[in-house]
């Protein structure tokens, strides 16, 4: 196994999980707290990456982020941000595919929190954001923690979309799952075995964290 593959994988999965959290938590909270027109559509869109082939998601991300689109040209020419064929691009691809897991799990966690507690917190002078961080998030920490563990595992194991957007550049964008494929293609069974074992270890660790999070007793 190549150590750089592991480091890149952890980087990609870490950034992807962070992106999923920043974008996903507010969505999860809104879905848990509000009944609005078009809610079913939002829920379907949020869940869509779970059922689409990752290569399809990766293909559209590549089209959007690359020079082929106006947005991609804006990123590269005006902001001087290159995402295609970088590990950051891989992280965005992995985030799109792992965010649904985080959103749905966190949403279930938020739904367990009695809204009456949030209303009382508001009467005690807290702002919406203050209520979220002082009451909602601590009480939903099991759901959110479980969502983070699942999202990290999913991001670390992502292959199809990552390879579409970031390619397979050893030492730059090659993650462990890509490396397994690469090794098998090259007939390097030793590297394939070692890499696969590391991936299994990462997945098992995440699942242990997941079950720890769901069993977390409220202090």
């Amino acid at each position, binding site marked *: 196994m190549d150590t750089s593959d592991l480091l890149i994988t952890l980087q990609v999965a870490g950034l992807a999980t962070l992106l999923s959290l920043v974008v996903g938590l507010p969505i999860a909270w809104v879905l848990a707290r509000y009944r609005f027109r078009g809610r079913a559509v939002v829920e379907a869109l949020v869940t869509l990456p779970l059922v689409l082939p990752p290569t399809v998601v990766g293909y559209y991300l590549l089209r959007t982020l690359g020079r082929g689109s106006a947005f991609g040209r804006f990123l590269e020419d005006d902001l001087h941000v290159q995402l295609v064929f970088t590990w950051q691009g891989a992280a965005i691809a992995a985030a799109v595919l792992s965010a649904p897991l985080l959103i749905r799990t966190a949403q279930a966690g938020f739904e367990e929190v009695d809204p*009456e507690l949030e209303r009382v917190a508001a009467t005690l002078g807290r702002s919406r954001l*203050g209520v979220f961080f002082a009451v909602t998030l601590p009480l939903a920490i099991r759901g959110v923690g479980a969502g983070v563990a699942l999202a990290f595992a999913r991001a670390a194991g992502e292959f199809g979309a990552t390879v579409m957007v970031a390619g397979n550049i050893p030492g730059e964008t090659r993650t462990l799952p890509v490396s397994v494929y690469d090794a098998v293609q090259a007939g390097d069974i030793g590297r394939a075995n070692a890499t696969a074992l590391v991936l299994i270890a990462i997945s098992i660790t995440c699942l242990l964290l997941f079950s720890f999070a769901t069993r977390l007793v409220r202090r």
Partner: protein
Amino acid sequence: MRDGNAAMAMVNVAVRRRMRGFDLDIAFSAGTEMVVLFGPSGAGKSMTLKTIAGIARADAGRIAIGDRVLYDSAADIDVPVRQRSVGYVPQGFALFPHLSVAQNIAFGLNGASADRRRDAVRELVAATGLVGLEERRPRQLSGGQQQRVALARALAAQPAILLLDEPFSALDTALHADLRELISALQAERGIPVLIVTHDLSDAFSLGDRVIVIEAGRVMQQGAREDIFYRPATRRVAELVGTRNILPMAVRGIGDGQVTLDWAGRDIEAGIYPSHDAPPVSVGQAVEASIRPTQIMIRRQGDTYEGRRNVFLATIVREIMGAEVYRLFARIDGSQARDDLEIELPTYTYFRLGLDRFKEIELSIRPEAVHIMHGDRA
């Protein structure tokens, strides 16, 4: 602190809100006192409280505490919940399960210095009898202790008003008296108005300086406690406040501060209250009068003395035994009344009078206890 406070009312509430089944349209005012919103479940009492707290929206109206306007649909004022300065204790208390008792109480003191928070918590823990429980979690507390934490938490930020939604419904009856006393003491000490929603008659009576009777989104009657319980304006209010003797009568004569009524063939005198703005009655008019079952004096026949007013011979025809009180149904001699008169008396009195053996009794009713209701108009 009773009735004259309308002029210097601290609390002025008028809210309208469309609800399932009926429209809420509530208006009342009150002073710096204990105010009970009383009525059956689903009458709109809790919703009224929530619109004052700001956690439910009124469709129109005006809410003011002192000279602070919290909501005024005409002036487009709607102060956000967090700036309303209301102490709100919901049904079930809604304590934060992840925080200790002390942290719960200090929750409303977010902006204050650590010193001030500690002092405020210490003071409130003492005032509500929670000393020694500061580090406990809510789930380690009894219902009564949880209620005390909720009160302390609501009072910590020095609110302008305290709102309690069914404060006793989750608690054993044995705890009610202690907590009533605590709430009264806190009200007196803080000098703020306290609004209490309850459907419980005895809680309403013992807590409310002022009582607002609400049914199906409307105020049926508001006034000092005694006015509501002993002098209900309408038959419906009389029923809601537990007056079980509602009797059809006819006016026979009007004297000085007194009205003589015909009660199914027997004369009975009713007092007239100067404080009560009942419309004048005229001779021959059919009226309904109420007599609370606890307002009747009872003696065994043979102990009769002559010359008293509103004295009736009667026979007990039915009895319902309770733990503390007996409910008796008496038929008045020489009366054609359709309904028997309901009387409530302590178990001790029942046996002391030998009523377990003797059913022939003599009743006397103070004229002040016979209350003429001025019809079903709110």
